[in-house]
């Protein structure tokens, strides 16, 4: 039997398969080139990029938790100029779409990073991380308030020649409200979820395990929450939704497709298995073959629910 068609489209972006890497967990791609041919991925999403370089938080920055981890890296990154000069040339050569994850402390910072990346060439789409504190709004995350989420979306969309995917934070009361606000503001796609705010204590030292006290929880521990939110988002918007959060195996990814995700991202799982993305791609193909499905499209949104 022929290989199933794994191609998906996210707005104007076409991916050879629906598996990407999640921002911040795959560096700038080069770090994982040892382990497999990166051109087999659907896309590479790079570490969050800001206008100026950021040194990040003081260590310790990470802590293992049950089936997951906390991180408070503090968005350390080389800044948009160095990204374009030093990191992008390698990524361009891989030959698959490169998605630049961007963030800022103000709407203006988001806009300027977006402009520079659109002009640089070699970037296929922007992923706008709206989990960051909005400096002008007392540090409340852009993504925690529908108005500021819409404001930053519209501003980035206004200057971008590239498709804009907005990455939502799960640290909100109702994800549907934010998803709709972002769609209305012009986003081409949504991705979710970012990490869940968490905490851990070193009881011997009676201190927080992370220097920053709180951190973002990721890994298999968050998958049920992520899946629920993706399911809710899919039902609230008509733009494509990219699902992530705790995906470590093909089975995990299949769950996200069934609730309607158009593509998935793999994050923390890369740390435990650097070839996780590849194994997930192969596992999805095998599942489709086994089910006699000719295309991934047959699977997306295939969830059967009984209404009563």
């Amino acid at each position, binding site marked *: 039997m022929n290989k199933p068609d794994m191609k998906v489209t996210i707005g104007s972006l076409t991916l050879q398969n629906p598996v990407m890497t999640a921002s911040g967990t795959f560096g700038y791609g080069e770090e994982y080139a*040892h382990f497999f041919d990166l051109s087999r991925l659907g896309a590479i999403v790079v570490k969050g990029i800001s206008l100026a370089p950021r040194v990040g938080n003081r260590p310790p920055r990470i802590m293992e938790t049950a089936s997951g981890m906390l991180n408070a890296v503090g968005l350390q990154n080389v800044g948009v100029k160095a990204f374009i000069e030093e990191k992008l040339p390698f990524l361009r050569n891989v030959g698959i779409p490169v998605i630049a994850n961007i963030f800022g402390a103000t709407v203006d910072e988001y806009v300027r990073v977006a402009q520079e990346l659109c002009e640089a060439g070699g970037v296929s789409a922007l992923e706008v991380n709206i989990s960051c504190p909005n400096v002008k709004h007392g540090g409340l995350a852009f993504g925690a308030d529908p108005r500021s989420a819409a404001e930053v979306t519209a501003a980035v969309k206004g200057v971008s020649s590239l498709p804009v995917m907005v990455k939502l934070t799960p640290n909100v009361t109702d994800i549907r409200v934010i998803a709709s606000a972002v769609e209305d503001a012009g986003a081409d796609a949504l991705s979710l979820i970012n990490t869940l705010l968490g905490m851990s204590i070193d009881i011997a030292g009676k201190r927080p395990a992370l220097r920053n006290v709180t951190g973002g929880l990721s890994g298999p521990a968050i998958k049920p929450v992520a899946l629920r939110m993706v399911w809710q988002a899919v039902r609230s918007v008509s733009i494509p939704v990219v699902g992530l959060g705790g995906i470590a195996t093909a089975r995990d990814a299949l769950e996200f497709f069934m609730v309607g995700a158009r593509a998935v991202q793999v994050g923390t799982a890369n740390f435990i298995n650097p070839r996780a993305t590849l194994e997930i791609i192969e596992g999805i193909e095998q599942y489709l073959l086994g089910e006699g499905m000719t295309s991934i499209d047959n699977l997306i949104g295939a969830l059967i629910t009984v209404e009563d």
Partner: protein
Amino acid sequence: MREILFDQQVQILSNRFFLPGHCLMVLRAPLSYGSACPGQFIMLILPGRSVPFLPRPFCIYGLAEEPECVRLEILYRVTGEGTDSLSRLHEGDKIGLLGPLGRGFDIDPAAQRVVLVAGGMGIAPLMRLAQAYRFLLRDKEFPIICYLGAAAESHLIGRDRMEALRADLRLSTDDGSTGHRGFITELFAQDLPSYRDSNTMIYACGPLPMLKTLAHCMIGSGLSCQVSLEERMACGVGACLGCVVALSGEAPGIRYGRVCTEGPVFSLSEIDWSVQDE
């Protein structure tokens, strides 16, 4: 680009306690490990996907090349869930192996004297370094002086093996059961001035307080020292930015280096010791 291998099915050749709470594990590693540099480390990934979750980093204690594999030894202390699970594995079990990782020690072929300062488990990377020096400079006769400190005599790990490498041992124990009573850095500091007379390479590994004291001793000595550091890690390959240490430098503001890729071996003077917490 140096090759990094990832194999989920590496065979454990042996795994045993040699002291309460301390184990030696031997793995059947691929042949390419023969070219791993002293000071490089590996990450072990336990089977299953929940507890413990992240890979665990360990130094390479010993390497022995055989016709079809490399016998890779790690020395570890059981301190938590991960190392406890490791200690329960048996000969023949399979484990995930990622490595060799990081930047190892610089070896100076012109060294006239090699000085090692080890605190507790800090002996692990230094043993491999001593082994490499004896092998690479096998036609030369030069002293290897090893300062070895531990809580008590029974915890002076690697003594016999160091002696077999013709190392001159200087011992200290916290309880005075053998050697100098007190810290190993005290012994080292006494001898330090005498190391200026010839080309001496100094290396250290041990708990953070020991390294901090060492950094203090070295100031003004005119000598440099390479240290192997530990920090919590997730990816081990430079991608997650989780394992950073503050670096010293002229420029204002903090600058961080990744222990997994820019280290684990740093020059003592590269590190900003003023911000290192215990």
